[in-house]
């Protein structure tokens, strides 16, 4: 596990999103949800295909607005479409 600085945001990636990024968690600078996901797309180009289909949690709550600010110490969960059952 990476050392979590109070100033960074943890982005947790699941299933196809994790596969596209190649790791289950990325630490990054604070910003809006859209900025942070955009940074991941630049850094991990395969994530571009997956991102549009994903929903996000910010600190365990569904986030529908990409303009939402995610401060240092925050957590984003990136969830591809579910396929249970």
């Amino acid at each position: 596990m990476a050392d979590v600085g109070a100033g960074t945001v943890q982005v947790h990636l699941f299933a196809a999103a994790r596969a596209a990024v190649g790791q289950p968690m990325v630490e990054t600078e604070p910003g809006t949800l859209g900025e942070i996901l955009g940074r991941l797309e630049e850094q991990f180009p395969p994530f571009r295909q997956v991102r549009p289909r994903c929903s996000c949690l910010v600190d365990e709550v569904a986030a529908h607005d990409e303009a939402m600010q995610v401060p240092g110490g925050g957590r984003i969960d990136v969830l591809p479409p579910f396929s249970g059952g």
Partner: protein
Amino acid sequence: MGEIRLVEVVEHPIDAGLLEAAVADPRAGAIVTFSGNVRDHDHGRQVAELTYEGHPSAEAVLREVAKEIDAAHEVIALAVAHRIGPIPIGEAALVAAVATAHRGEAFEACRALVDLTKEKLPVWKHQRFTDGTEEWVNCA
């Protein structure tokens, strides 16, 4: 309001008989059980290996799903379990059991429970095929 007798996300085989026993009730005239099993094929390809990944919130979400179904239907008792991790062909990924007074309600509530679980539960199915290809289902 009925009783939510068992809600679980597990990493071991699900015993459907256990869920059926959990919902048994002297008031119940009907129990309908659904078992969603791993098939050996999908869209014409042979499945070699199947794994479910779950979000840490999965069991809490499954409990919310169960409450929603209980509130919307005339349920006496219900139970629902989802398995994650690798699942061999033929074994169950999802089992849901619903007990009601009459049979129509049992079929409807069980189907609604399965449909809502599939819609809301944060779990993901990964398939590896015998031809070497693989996919995250719904995210190809």
